Every structure is written in C-alpha cells, then in structure tokens.
C-alpha cells in the first residue's frame, strides 16, 4: 500500500485473472460451467461484503438482506408486473443501495458487537418479512422466472440469459466490473481512509476525516454490490426464494472472505471458488464413507469457520500478502 507504485503488477494480475476466467469457459466440462457461473455471481456478493468487512473493518452479520433486496428487487417486478431485464436489474441494485443507506443510518450508531447483533437482527426482520409477504414471494418455496422473462430483446439485440454461454458471459462481465471497482477503491484515497478507520478509528477522526460519512459510504457501496449479485442471481438462474434472505447467506460471504483473505481484492473470489468445491468434494466423500449420517454442508462450514478463525485468520491471500507479496491490494 506504499503510494500508487506497483500499478503495473497489480493491474496485470487482475487483467490476467479476468482473462483466465473468460478462457475457462472453453475448456470447462459442462457440469462445471454452471458451477463457475454461480461462483462468479456469488463471488460478487463476497466482494461486496469484503468492502465493509475487510476494508472498513465492520463485521456485518446481516448481509443476506442486501443480497435478497437485489434478488427480490429484480425478480418481483418481472414476475408480478412484467418488467424487463435491464430496468429490473437496475431497480434491484437501487433497492440494495437504499436499504443499505437506511440500515447504515441506524446500525452505524453502534460499534463492535452491538453492530454485529443489530445487523443480524435487521436481516432477520428481512427474512421474516419475505415469509410474512408470502402471497408475493411464496416464502421458502420461492418463485421461478420463465424462459421468456429472462431475455433481453430490442431492435438490435437479442440476449438469452438462459443460454449456458450467455449466462457465463454475463456472470463474467459482472465479476470483472465488480473486481475492477474493488481494485480502484482499494487503491484510492477513500480506500486508504477505510483502512485507517479499521485500524484506528479515533486517530482517523482526529486527523480530520468524517469517519461516520466514510463508513456510511462503504455500507452503501457494499449493499449495492451485494444487491447487484442478488439481482444477477435471479436473472441468470431464474429462482428467488426466502432461503437467500436467511442467516446462512449472511454467514457464507463471511466464510468466503475469511478463507480467501479479507481486505484483499482477489480473496473473495478465491474463497468462494475454493469453498464451493471443498464443500462439495468433502460432502460427497464423507457421505460415501458414512452413508446415513445425514452429512450436510453445515458441518463443513462450521468446522471451516472455527479452524480459520483459530489458525488462519488472514486467509490465503492475506497470508501471502503478509509474507511474500506486500504489494497485493
């Protein structure tokens, strides 16, 4: 983080990652195609979470509400009112940003443990609301969007989001944009102030920075990116259900970011990718060894969280940055 030198290795690295992800679609077997598309969208959620947790140092336990705001904000207008894809996507992001602003105005009056619990509680209210408004949302059962609802069509353009390759491309596009936004923020004065707030908030205040306004901005950006992921999810995978507003979806981005490395730009992507495969592989293996033990992924998530926080709190890229590559943003 020494000034803005090292710009070349940083941008080269990120462009390379983006290029690699693009190229991957040509070599991936069918089954993994869908998984990677899903991973890319959820990695955007993780990156949104990372802005608040990694850089600003605010541990929210309620980010599912922002993901769900995007999910339902994009999905419900299409399902009930026949909106088109692009305006719905924008609306979903807007819902997330607005929700983050409101929650931020309330929750940022607290710090530390109280902040964690307050965000947890607000998210829980959000989850209960999706159940209570079951007439509109069908609660846990959820709603699916039809094929035609997920097509972007105009005079010159025909984009079918249900098509496997188009879906991959759209997820890749979102990931690239969010990744680049994260890099820009991390290397910007704003990003430096967020880190300063995380490291020593009082000091930062006494250096003349309006820490409240900065934290609120981080919250809104984080919420908007998380909502973008949610909106993309319903458009690309066609399903919205209350489970996405439930507490697991607040814990998962925390897990992904911790694993990959908090406050690193590529950590969330790495963490999401690894956790997906790790969870699936170990689940399959364990269920093969112990059939009938009802082994679901929750045990793996739990064990991963405890082990990470005990032995590996900086995550993979965080440790790499500390030991070897100090310029990693």
């Amino acid at each position, binding site marked *: *983080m*020494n*000034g*803005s*030198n090292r710009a070349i290795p940083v941008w080269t690295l990120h462009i390379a990652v983006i290029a690699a992800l693009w190229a991957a679609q040509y070599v991936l077997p069918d089954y993994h195609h869908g998984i990677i598309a899903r991973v890319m969208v959820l990695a955007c959620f993780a990156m949104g979470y990372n802005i608040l947790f990694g850089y600003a140092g605010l541990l929210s336990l309620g980010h599912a509400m922002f993901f769900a705001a995007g999910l339902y904000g994009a999905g419900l207008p299409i399902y009930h009112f026949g909106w088109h894809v692009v305006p719905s996507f924008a609306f979903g992001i807007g819902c997330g940003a607005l929700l983050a602003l409101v929650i931020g105005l309330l929750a940022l009056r607290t710090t530390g443990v109280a902040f964690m619990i307050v965000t947890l509680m607000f998210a829980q209210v959000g989850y209960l609301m999706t159940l209570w408004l079951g007439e509109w949302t069908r609660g846990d059962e959820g709603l699916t969007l039809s094929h035609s609802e997920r097509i972007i069509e105009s005079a010159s353009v025909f984009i079918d989001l249900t098509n496997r390759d188009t879906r991959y491309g759209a997820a890749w596009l979102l990931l690239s944009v969010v990744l680049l936004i994260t890099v820009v923020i991390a290397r910007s*004065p704003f990003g*430096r*102030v967020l*880190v*300063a707030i995380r*490291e*020593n908030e*009082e*000091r*930062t*205040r*006494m*250096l*003349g*920075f*309006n*820490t409240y306004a900065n934290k609120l901005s981080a919250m809104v950006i984080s919420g908007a990116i998380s909502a973008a992921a949610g909106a993309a999810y319903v458009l690309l995978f066609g399903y919205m259900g209350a489970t996405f507003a439930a507490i697991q979806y607040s814990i998962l981005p925390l897990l992904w970011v911790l694993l990959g490395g908090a406050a690193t730009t590529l950590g969330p992507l790495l963490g999401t990718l690894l956790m997906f495969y790790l969870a699936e592989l170990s689940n399959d293996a364990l269920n093969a060894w112990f059939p009938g033990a009802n082994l679901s992924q929750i045990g793996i998530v739990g064990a991963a969280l405890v082990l990470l926080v005990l032995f590996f709190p900086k995550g993979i890229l965080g440790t790499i940055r500390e030991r070897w590559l100090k310029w990693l943003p």
Partner: protein
Amino acid sequence: MAAVKPLLTTRNLSRSFGGLKAVDNVDLDVMPGEIRAIIGPNGAGKTTLVSLICGRIEPSSGQINFEGRDITRMPAHKRVGLGIAYTFQITSIYPNLSVFDNVALPVQRMSHARVSSRGLDASVMHALERVGLADEAGKTAGTLAYGHQRLLEVAMGLSLEPNLLILDEPTQGLSDGEIENFIKLVREIGERATVLLIEHNMDVVMQLAEQITVLNFGKVLAQGTPDAIRANVKVQDAYLGTGADD
C-alpha cells in the same frame, strides 16, 4: 496597529463525569504564535481540557472560540479542518501500517487538489525528516521504539499543517538526547504555529513555554510566565513541591 486577538479562547469551560467535575469553569486565552504549557498534578484535568478543545469529548457547559469562531458544538473532524491538531497522551498511531503510510494519511487529507503520487511521497518524507524518522519510513509502525512512535505521532500532527498543535505529554518515554531534539523541533514549530503543551517534565516546560497555565482539581490555579509561576506560592504548594519529578 490593531490589538492582536487570541487564537483560542475558552469561557467557563466545564466538563463533569457523573459527580466529578474534571474541568471546572476554565477560562483560557492563547495568543497566536504562543507556546503555552499546561501543567498540574495527575488528575488535574489537563487531558480532559485539551480533549474538550480538540473535540474528542463534549463540554458540559461553557464556550470555546477558535480564530473568532464558536466551535463549542463543532465535531472533532471539522475542528481538524480548521487547523487544530492533537497528539494523544497514549500514543495512537496505526501500528499495523508502515511509518510512511501513517504520515501519508494526514498528508492526503491536506492535499486539496489531486496531488501526484510523487508530490505525496515528497510531503511525507519531508514530515518524517523534520522529526528525524526518515530512515524508518519502510518499517511497520508498531515495531518502532516507543519514543519513535511518539515522534511519528508528532509528524502526523505536523502534516496537518495546523495553526494550533496540541501535544499531550509528548516527551514521555523519550531519552535525554531525544528530548533535546524534541525541544528544538517544538521551537521550530512555534515559529509558525501556536503550540499547546501538556507536560510533566519541568525542564522541558521551563525551556519551551512562553506562558504557563497551572491546573488543579479542574480549576485554573495560576497563569503567567515561567518565572512568575516558579515564584508562585500556591503552585509550589500544590505541585512543584520540592522540585522532584513525578
């Protein structure tokens, strides 16, 4: 020629914590360019007083004026914008960041225009050179010796280009040689800025201060030049005693 107005004034400034009056109706007038020392026994309310001035805590009653403006209700970060900088009694830096990055933050804050990265580097190194830490720019701040951490904090304060620099027990933990250098530095700073200095080290106070305010039990006990204070009987009783350092 018009009379010079005080840079900082407080009127009836008070702060209570529960039943305890930590600062009790303090009136203060600090002239621009002055080096003012605030001394007093432990618990006299010195840190509380300067915390009220820089905005870390809110007063229970009273008024604070800076450059003619009432800043009593102004939040701390805005006061920094007006030119008040504060270094903490218990060193408060960014231990996990490099020395360079510690100073880069206040420098960044002061760069109103988009300063090039080279300009930023130059300003940071200049601030570090002034306090004698230029060689340690790459080190992690938390690994510095305690005295050097305090100097780093002073560098951060200086980078804010303050009109009023408040130093809270800055020489605590410094070696004699470092204290010598520090006195020179503060004299230099005092040529362009106003300095408010809380100190227990009487040598430093007597060498640096142009005016001294003595606090006891939250009230102003005495105020005047170093010689006047040295001769003041009340101060001797309450604080200087046999002249031993605490």
